[in-house]
């Protein structure tokens, strides 16, 4: 791409999820399924087989009643940057079906390239990837609600959260049609961010100081999951509860949590 056609430098789309606000209601999951044409089967209680891009994990502090506490943690794909785009899954894919886009920071998944070896699933430390063991089947007439912006996935391939990449494309198309170079912050929001009834999810460009995520990720409440693996994830979590922050990684007993305490500082 020629320099003058570039937008203001590369974007790095990321997410900040406020676990103090998140109630674990599951609207993000269903918004994602509805937006991204997720299939469903009669029994979805085996979560290893259940195709969901975003899952909610229930954390507990393990204390007995009445000192017990629980917290839900929504887990989309972390869109790991690793070091210079070496995300764990991208590094292992033999089919180049998944790639790190340095212009957006989004880890893509190209379904027609994937041949289902599932190396990426083994490499992903977040269990963010799922394999389609069956062809998707909708009850008669129900395929009417499928979203044409997202292709339906078939048996034998791996899929994962795309940060609703089709919404970025749509926003870019619209901006182009209106003669704009830049898209506004609110023009590109993922389906889960848009739906969250608690307003717990914030999405935007981590490189752009004008975007809400830029400031939020520097909060003392902020942490990331399994940071010390060097995955350099682009999903940040906020929690005012120490035990929740500690649950995000394998901390030593006397080690503090929170932003800036660890390696993996962001390279803008």
């Amino acid at each position, binding site marked *: 791409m020629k320099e003058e056609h570039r937008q203001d430098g590369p974007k790095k789309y990321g997410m900040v999820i406020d676990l103090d*606000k998140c109630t674990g209601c599951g609207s993000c*999951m269903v918004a994602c399924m*509805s937006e991204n044409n997720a299939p*469903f089967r009669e029994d979805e209680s085996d979560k290893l087989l259940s195709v969901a891009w975003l899952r909610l994990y229930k954390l507990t502090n393990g204390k007995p009643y*009445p000192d017990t506490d629980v917290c839900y943690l929504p887990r989309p794909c972390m869109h790991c940057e690793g070091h210079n785009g070496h995300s764990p899954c991208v590094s292992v894919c033999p089919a180049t079906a998944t790639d790190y886009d340095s212009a957006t920071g989004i880890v893509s998944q190209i379904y027609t390239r994937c041949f289902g070896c599932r190396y990426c699933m083994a490499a992903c430390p977040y269990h963010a990837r799922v394999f389609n063991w069956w062809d998707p089947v909708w009850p008669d007439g129900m395929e*009417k609600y499928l*979203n*044409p912006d997202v292709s*339906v996935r078939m048996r034998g391939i791996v899929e994962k959260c795309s940060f609703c990449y089709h919404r970025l494309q749509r926003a870019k198309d619209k901006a182009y049609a209106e003669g704009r170079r830049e898209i506004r912050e609110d023009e590109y929001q993922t389906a889960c961010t848009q739906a969250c009834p608690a307003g717990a999810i914030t999405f935007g460009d981590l490189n752009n100081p004008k975007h809400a995520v830029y400031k939020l990720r520097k909060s003392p409440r902020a942490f990331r999951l399994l940071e010390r693996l060097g995955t350099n994830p682009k999903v940040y979590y906020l929690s005012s509860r120490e035990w929740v922050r500690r649950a995000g990684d394998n901390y030593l007993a006397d080690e503090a949590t929170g932003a800036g305490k660890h390696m993996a500082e962001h390279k803008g």
Partner: protein
Amino acid sequence: MKVGRRRFLAFGIGGAVGTALTPLPWKLMDDISIWTQNWPWTPVPPKGVVSHVNSVCTLCPGRCGITVRKVGDRVVKIEGTKGHPVNDGGICLLGLSGPQFLYGPSRVRSPLKRVGKRGEGRWEAISWEQAVSEVAKRMGELRAKAEPHTVGCLLPEDRGSVAQLFARLLTVYGSPNVMRRPSIEDTYEMALYQTHGIIGRPGFDLQKTTFLLSFGSGYLQGWGSPVHMFRAHSHLLSNSCRVVQVEPRLSISAAKADRWMAVKPGTEAALALGLCHVIVKESLYDKAFVDKHCQGFDAWTDEQGQKQPGFKELVLGNFTPATTAEITGLKQADIIELARNFAKASRPLAICGRGNGSVPGTLGEFMAVYALNALVGSVGRSGGVLALPEAEYLQWPAPEMDEVAAKGMQQQRLDGAGGDKYPLARYRTSYLAALLKGGGYPLKMLLVAGENPVYDLPGSTELKKALADIPFLVSFSSFMDETAAMADLVLPNHIYLERLEDVPPVFGLPKPLLQLCRPVTAPQFDTRHTGDVIIQIARALGGGVAAAFPWPDYESCLKQVLGGHFARLHKDGYLEGRVPELRFETASGRFEFINTEYKAKPAYTPVIPQGDKGVFPLVLTGYDSMRLAGGAVADSPFMVKSVDDTVLKKGDVLVEVNPHTAGQQGLAEGDAVVLATPAGRARVRVHLSHRVPPGMVAMPRGLGHTAYDPFIGGKGVNFNELIAPVPDPVSGLDAAWGIRASLTKV
């Protein structure tokens, strides 16, 4: 041919080089992977023009504004409407599931007539003309026998034009038996009337509250208008306000609160009065408000010259921190600290009504929480609880009753609501099973619209038997739910995405909000608007009944009764009312701690769960989760998919049991057990959890559907099969927070 070493190597190496060079195997592998991914049954969603249509979601009482994304004429996605006064862009799982309901396999596709045995599932599709004439014929026969009062009607609402069309039909026909399921809205309405003298509902000004104290209200589990409450909670957090949850189980509302007060089950009202005690004793109450606006704080002399104790004596005498601590199981110091913090907050607010609010609770408890709000001056001010008088926004021409109708209407209501025993109650539908069996007279026909009593009312096993004895059961359900499956006739309504209908004000919002649900797509099947069907039934009945329904169809009726509102609603989708000024219409013209007329007062009325402690050593309680719809609208396939595997595993529901209790009973994680209560028994599995106290078994509401499709039905157990209602002695409404239970390993 002799194969020597040289020849062998030549073949081997030649073969390997040849295989590596020819593109054939690679091409074949590539093609196979492409072929196996291009089966014709993998759908390719057609493209089309994208459009957005605004309407209202009426799947739950929350009434969120929705923006429906359409591609061509297909409904593809439902999103929350930005800037809407209820949800401002947010939306819940149920609301998101709209497209699955619209195109779902459980939709009833045409009017159906039962041909097999009741509940057998054998149907004959009939025309709408036949369906309407069959209902009218039956109703005509009963009226000719001067038994019009034996026709009943069960609705989810009594406000709104369709509910009032039903009420109008039954009035001119001659039956007082229009019923709706009571909830905390009813108890709040009573408490508002007892304290303010106003008929209406409370509104909560949560945007300006600085301290929210919730007595078991599942403010993040469907209480009030769910998404509105989620928004309010996040707003409170962002503004560093305090939230305290009083509840025996660590619900998500308790977990998200700043402080969780783990009380003994059913003792929330005692804590409310204990807090009042501390606030009064330490003179922390708002003296200006109490002196200026309140009656019954101090002792007073009634009209008969009798001396009546005031609220002050009531709480000072009975609810010392020591007593309250003993009743609730909390520490004295915690009670005192909470009372002080609550009283000292600038704009505190207390709310009540357990869980998502489906069980009405006791009037004494609601009045206690009202009294607590009044003590801190949070009645009728910003950040507090407001009184919103019932808005009569529909203007109906007065119906004329003939002699048969007038006679029928004089009959006692089957549920005894508003009678001598329970003068305050409007509806006592929670006891429908008992009423159908032992009521004053048998019900010969029941019209069910927008409700699913076989699933949704407590004691559903008994109710199912009782409903089976009603000779003629008509369902207006859009889905083949449990009640429709038992019906003689199913007259399917359009679903909310296909119909035009007014939406009455939402409970809990600080302002009255009138909305209009507008069709976003054409009806998918041969369904008909229930409003139209009522008018057609009335016409077919003829005479005085038909005369009360002069409209050609529902739409013209709606336009007439909405009057001037219609045009504005049609344009904007909603109409916000104003917050009325603080006023009291009681006998004293003040806020009455103790009602001077009815003597209803704040009280801790222990509600004893049904059952023998010896046989049933544990207590079963239900809990609400946003991922399961506990009401008349079932879950969607997506919602069931979202449920944790610690709640639903294969076909089994997991109940929460404290590890201590499980240890005593010799139960381990995942064990299959029989959960028995006085109301019923069911096979469940055990999930060990510290979220419940020892001795308690907690089970989610919203599972155990037996009808619908395999994506929704046949999963877990319906909580309502295991619970039975317990009446509040004052209001007569169901106040059961649990039932005694036992677990036996199988």
